[in-house]
């Protein structure tokens, strides 16, 4: 018998520190598979954020840097400019990318930095224990919106893909989900395309993953997927916003 599905080479043997059923691991695997597939394991550098995926630098089996909270796109810019022959991505959560790091992501995208950004959106802060995120849905309860997100007070969730799609420079922007095996297979294609463009030095590529947080939503992993399908997908519509390579 031959192994047809197995742990990619671009992942280390360190077990993930995420909660049971957390889909960060699926996103990690998709990136690792794409790096393997495009033969980039020796030329890849990743930048980890602050948040649940703060330890991402332990899980990818190539060069990694750990950034200050929200500053990953700036760190990635530095690496890419210093070593143009390497391929660089950031991995960021919704607090890191869409709250504290809004300035950095917008300006990295606007400069058309030749990096890939993988953005995991689960509508909540996981690591600090379930606080409101910039992508928390209207009326959704978190530990810092204990009466539900009040859009009159704090505004609506930010749709990052749509926001970045207003800029001229980005090369490829797509939103995918990790909520079913079919969706994961679509996400795999998108991740592979982003890494392909990255390899070819085309420009700024951005993938948003709609994901879950079973622990802080207070749901088991199965119910969390269902909840996300019913509540997140109507607000965060899946699809490709920009693909200059297909034009």
């Amino acid at each position, binding site marked *: 018998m031959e192994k047809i599905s197995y742990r990619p080479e671009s992942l280390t043997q360190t077990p993930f520190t995420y909660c049971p059923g957390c889909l960060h691991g699926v996103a990690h695997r998709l990136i690792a598979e794409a790096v393997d597939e495009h033969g980039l394991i020796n030329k890849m550098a990743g930048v980890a954020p*602050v948040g649940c995926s*703060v330890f991402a630098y332990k899980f990818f089996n190539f060069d990694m840097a*750990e950034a*200050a*909270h*929200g500053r990953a796109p700036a760190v990635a810019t530095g690496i890419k400019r210093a070593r143009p022959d390497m391929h660089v991505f950031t991995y960021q959560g919704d*607090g890191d990318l869409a*709250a*504290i790091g*809004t300035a950095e992501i917008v300006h990295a995208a606007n400069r058309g930095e030749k990096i890939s950004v993988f953005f995991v959106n689960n509508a909540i*802060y996981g*690591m*600090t*224990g379930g*606080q*409101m995120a*910039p992508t928390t849905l209207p009326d959704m309860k978190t*530990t*810092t*919106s*204990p*009466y539900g997100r009040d859009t009159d007070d*704090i505004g609506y969730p930010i749709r990052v893909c749509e926001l970045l799609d207003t800029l001229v420079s980005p090369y490829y922007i797509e939103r995918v989900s990790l909520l079913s095996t079919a969706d994961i297979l679509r996400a795999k294609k998108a991740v592979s395309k982003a890494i392909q463009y990255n390899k070819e030095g085309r420009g700024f590529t951005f993938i948003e993953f709609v994901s879950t947080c079973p622990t802080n939503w207070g749901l088991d992993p199965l119910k969390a997927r269902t909840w996300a399908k019913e509540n997140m997908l109507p607000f965060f519509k899946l699809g490709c916003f920009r693909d200059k390579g297909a034009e």
Partner: protein
Amino acid sequence: MAKILMKGNEAIAEAAIRSGCRLYFAYPITPQSELIEYMARMMPKVNGTFLQAESEVAAINMVYGAAGSGKRVMTSSSSPGISLKMEGISYIAGAELPAVIVNVQRGGPGLGDIQPAQGDYFQATKGGGHGDYRLIVLAPASVQEFADMASEAFELADKYRNPVMILADGMLGQMMEPVEFKEALTDAEIEELPKKHESWCICPNEDGDKKHHHEINSLEIDPVVLEKHVTKLYEKYAEIEKNEISYERYNISDDNEVLCVAWGTASRIVKSAINEVKKDGKSVGMIRPIKVWPYPYEAIAQAIGPKVKKVYVFELNTGQMLDDVKIAVAGKVPVEFWGKVGGVVFTPAEIKEKLEACFKE
């Protein structure tokens, strides 16, 4: 009021609300998250403002605006987040605004870890932000003291128009101890508080035709004018050093063979060790600075008894307050230091061992 078993992070939040704080801006970070969560739950119930900012940088600048309006305002964070706030804190000090900042310290440098440490002493007491300024820095050693310091911090901030930092750590934030709260200020009393700032703060003009023009500002292009401003700040700091020093004397006597100096969480552990060596008939005293700026230099010098062979400094860092102790001791007796870093906390047994080695010398 009956005692309540409470985490330090929640006790300081409750005490701040009772002290008339109705504005709070912050960003989540471990190990102070219970503080921001408590504020999120309780501020709406007292018609206060809770706002989770998009970053520490934004949060401290919201504090700047609110403090410039003369209201009691607070923010909190842990070490890396405090570093981000430092620019804003410098502006607050420069503009002479009253504000309270809580730092629930963790291990560093950089992201470090989330366990208790005392590595931010230099940052808190010697600057941190740019320019010539001082923070008044309170250093609690128990959950009760942490809570009591809320009203003290707001009083000092209002009195001197200066930012005040409460320098706690992950252990004080996360541990639960019984706490007894002071009577809460009434709504009427809270309404009175900003009135003493109305001569300078942003506020409605109620003087009819006599317009006021209050500037909340730390910019002064003319060096001669800025020199005057900084000199005035320094006179204020001298006044604070004269009036506000506070410290605890523990087991100080003429029999002391060693004098310890420790602050915050570290002092709790040193106390246990002092109690242990006492059982063996050895006398060790301790000075615990309760404020670490202004610093109790004289109190330490005076506590060096006739039999003291050595002053021993214990901190959860690589020797930061040590510099201040050396200034206080001024070469009279040797000063030794022992510390633990990276979020590793020393145990009473380890301190006891260090003290016993002194007796053998």
